[in-house]
């Protein structure tokens, strides 16, 4: 090797430094971008919303009265339960431009609620209340799927949200 060892080590050291600094900057920059977009757009993840006894979901409010309820102008609350292998209610009608809060849980095993067109994606765990809010702007049919394996007929567990044009 023509280069003396000491100099070689210095060169390696400089290259290391030239890489380490951007390697710190890249994740920090990404995280900053993420924080700005998440908080700027008001994106919230499911958080602690309380428990219901896993074996007596239907006896406990709000799950003793599932269904759609208007809570304000253009504001709705959907109380929904999931069980093998159906959502209840499994067909929901809403007017276009609604802001909808889903209050849901599972009566048996782990399920999920995925409404791709409305960016709803939440796990439904027995014993836990899941609460997520979404906007339904355009009229049309929004499919909702169970997206966690919940037994032999998992692929039959789905429902629809029908968003009707404002009259």
């Amino acid at each position, binding site marked *: 090797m023509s280069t003396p060892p000491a100099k070689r080590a210095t060169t*390696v050291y400089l290259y290391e430094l030239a890489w380490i600094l951007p390697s710190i900057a890249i994740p920090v920059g990404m995280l900053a971008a993420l924080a700005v977009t998440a908080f700027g757009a008001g994106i919230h993840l499911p958080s*602690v919303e309380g428990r219901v006894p896993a074996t007596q979901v239907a006896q406990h409010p709000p799950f003793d009265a599932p269904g759609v309820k208007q809570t304000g102008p253009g504001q709705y609350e959907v109380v929904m339960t999931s069980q093998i292998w159906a959502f209840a209610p499994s067909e929901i009608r809403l007017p276009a431009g609604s802001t909808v809060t889903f209050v849901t849980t599972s009566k048996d095993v782990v399920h999920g609620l995925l409404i791709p067109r409305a960016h709803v994606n939440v796990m439904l765990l027995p014993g836990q209340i899941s609460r997520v809010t979404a906007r339904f702007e355009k009229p049309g049919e929004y499919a909702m799927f169970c997206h*966690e*394996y919940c037994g032999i007929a998992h692929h039959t567990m*789905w429902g629809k949200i029908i968003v009707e044009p404002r009259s």
Partner: protein
Amino acid sequence: MIARATHGRLTAAYLAVALVALLGGVLTGLAQALEHAGINVYPALAPAVQSYYHGLTLHGVLNVLVWTTFFICGFLPFVAIEALGVPPAARRLGWPTFWLMTGGLVLAAVPLVGNAASVMFTFYPPLKAHWAFYVGLTIVVIGTWLVTLQLALTWRVWRRANPAVRTPLPAFMALATFAMWTIASLGLAAEMLFMLIPWSLGWVGGTDALLARVLFWFTGHPIVYFWLLPAYVSWYTLMPRQVGGRLFSDPLARASFLLFLVLSTPLGFHHQYTDPGIHEGWKLVHAFLTFAVFFPSLLTFFNVVASLESGGRARGGRGLVSWFVRLPWGDPSVAAQVVAMLLFAFGGIGGLINASFSLNRLVHNTAWMPGHLHLTVGTAVTLSYMGITYWLIPHLRGRALWSRRLALAQVWLWAGGMVIFSNALHRLGLMGMPRRTMIGAAAYVQPEWKPLLPLVGLGGAVLTVSALLYFANILLTLVASRTEYPYGVAFAEAMSGADHAPAIFDRWRPWLVLAGVLIVLAYGPSLVRLIAETPLDTPGMRVW
């Protein structure tokens, strides 16, 4: 150098179990891919495979749990002992550990094969498998702890004889990997021992889905580093030499493994962004830590590529690109691992999207996830392990690989099949197709999914052909190869060697303490609250 007979046989035994598992996983995987393409082969597979979900559980458990774990327990102690140059300290521990793990595997396999544990490799309760499934898997985990013990005892013997020398890099990396895993696996062990096993045996009446998921993901994210780091060991300590170059920086390699040791575990909530019952603020903390662990990944990317570049340039490569072309692409071990790295770049980018606090909701539990997992564990890990076996199995057998050409064809078929398969699944996920779902039988298939579903089947078929070529080549190497293969593991030398690393890089306690502190900070408050307020009242169900 240690004689071949002393520890090579044990490594070979672990590899044998790993390969049998991989074969089972590959065959069940094909049926799933074809199902998505509209070809339902399950009626023909009964009673061996009783449903789509039975097959899917077999595929997941065999490939991501068994193939990886047994490969790692064979490969890492092998390189560690070769690098240290001392025999395993607890000789009597070696074979009993292997038989314990294999016994645990058989115990878990009985209900698994019999469709009494079709709960996926994540086994979320209250889906309730047969107790033997949980007990068997727990025994396998305990076996991995004994491997850690063996490595630590062996290192201590070596250290007494070499007090002033830096731990050889391959041994250092093997120790760091097993130390990380041993800490990380405590979550899974707690879930098994305190929740799933007593519950499946009927000693306690109920369980809790959320607490079980928190404990599972305590282990479930770092387990991907447990799979990945052995591939990194090969990329750092073996490949630079295989390509005719040198490792760029030994200290930087140590730094990245120490960071993996410290940062791999306290970030599991990024798998639970969509779970209720965990405070949003703690999810954000775990998001921060997930992006922190991207740092050692970037260090690895740079160091490994710079090392490959030194090989490409030593082979006459000039300029920005031609060093890459000059790499020894005719060596299947090298080709497999470089291709694995290339596809891993996309897996890494996808992983950042998954870990993103805000973007995760677009992809969580959709087909995007198996698309991602097949680039990472299915390619970065599996194709690298295949590349490793292309030199390791001839090495252990003393006979050259049966066919280099067949091996090269296998590598490129894997790459092609994976590009088709994984791309289709990623796109289907973005269109909202759920994962782990018998799509061919679903009533809700959306029109925009339909053009992509056949590609899942096609990609899966190409991957299966590739895997079968791999198994044929390995089998023929064992039984039909006549060319002698010389014994002697040669690790890469470094441009900047171990003596340039700070002395603290060769101490374990500060890093283990730091790892523990971060785990307590990141998990402590949520775990304490959940354990205090969670009644174990959810009954189990067998609904498959």
